[in-house]
């Protein structure tokens, strides 16, 4: 990964986004990747974003949900 932005940092950022949006908005996985790319510019890429989502799921902080399309939600 470019510079110092770690996958863990991206996963934390994504978690915060999902948490803040709970009950108001549902994030699609790709939306989360776009958000962190917007935040960090070319320091991160799509592959880093994918890794971060993987980490988010494997750490059981978030889960996938399905309502027409697939979304990322907080694990209950």
């Amino acid at each position, binding site marked *: 990964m470019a510079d110092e932005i770690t996958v863990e940092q991206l996963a934390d950022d994504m978690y915060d986004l999902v948490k803040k949006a709970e009950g108001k908005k549902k994030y*699609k996985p790709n939306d989360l990747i776009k958000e962190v790319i917007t935040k960090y510019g070319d320091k991160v890429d799509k592959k880093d974003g994918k890794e971060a989502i993987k980490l988010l799921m494997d750490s059981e902080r978030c889960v*996938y*949900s*399905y309502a027409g*399309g*697939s979304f990322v939600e907080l694990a209950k």
Partner: protein
Amino acid sequence: MSDSKTPLLDELEKGPWPSFVKEIKKAARTSRKAKDLLGQLELSYKDKKTHWKHGGIVGVRGYGGGIIGRFSDVPEEFPGAAHFHTVRVNQPSGWFYTTDALRQLCDIWDKYGSGLTNMHGSTGDTVFLGAGSDELEDIFTELSKAEWDLGGSGSDVRTPSCCVGPARCEFACYDTLALTYDLTMAYQDELHRPLFPYKWKFKMAGCPNDCVASIARADFSIIGTWRDEIRIDQAAVAEYAEKGLDIQSDAIRRCPTRCMKWDGNTLKINDHQCTRCMHCINVMPKALRPGTDTGAVILIGAKAPIVQGAILSSVLVPFMKIEPPYEELKDLIEKIWEFWDEHGVARERIGELIQRVGLGNFLEAIDIEPSPQMITQPRDNPYIFYEEYYAEEKEGGEA
């Protein structure tokens, strides 16, 4: 009056066809889940509405696909069917199972689920119907131990599916089974972790007969074809004629491009006019065979009418050699995904995106040259734009 508890469903057992009601009743003898399913289904027929809720948060750890949530909206009345999730199991390429493998699956399913299966779902997977939320991890663990994996569901790569290919079919123009296995392994992440705007289906058909109906169902169809000439065994053609086949009516007149001639002794085919429809080969399989320079035509964009109307797929690459390690094919797939990720909106299939942005723009973005095969119907108007025509017209001072 009948004292049956399912009088409406009983009607579906009448008639000379197999009945899913009969099968559920059979399962209901030993499964509470199946028994309550029958009860809920009868209620749905009575109320004329479904009592299933769709989706929600169900799945196994780390996976976003493979489980489809089904919750009953009358759980107090039918507790056995309160959670009735569907588990998609990634099927072997071409649906070849040993009896041992089938027993293994059934044993797992009898232990945890309702015992009801759908062999196979329209996506292609082996489908287990009726798992409780608490049982999902155990089912997944047992399947994994036995080296089975879950298939795709949600906005991801759906379980790639193919025809029986060269294993049982002499017409196969490439190894559909090998390609299906390769793509399944290569795109494990995309299969299990939804990241696309909507679903993506690969279907591999070995020849233009397209026995997996990929042209109507797959976002990305890989249909076997050939570039050289149809192989003709004139003696076998004559034998068909001797045995009573009306070659003129049954083959020549039904050729969509009228590219064949039969003078009573010799069959001639103008292969440049042939669209590889397979009709003549299907009529005389012992006499005609696909050519030997084989590969596949790649088509894109089919879908069933869920969000918008149904779309049949369009030719994207008229001919591509399909050989391991399939680099050219994978490069193309990944370019398309890149474009779809960038421009697709939620629940938009690739075919709908192409219609929205225009095929010309799509081709330019994925770096593919327009070709005459990309037309709506044979010998009809092209629906792509050739920018150089406009440039020439402007230079010439016309329109």
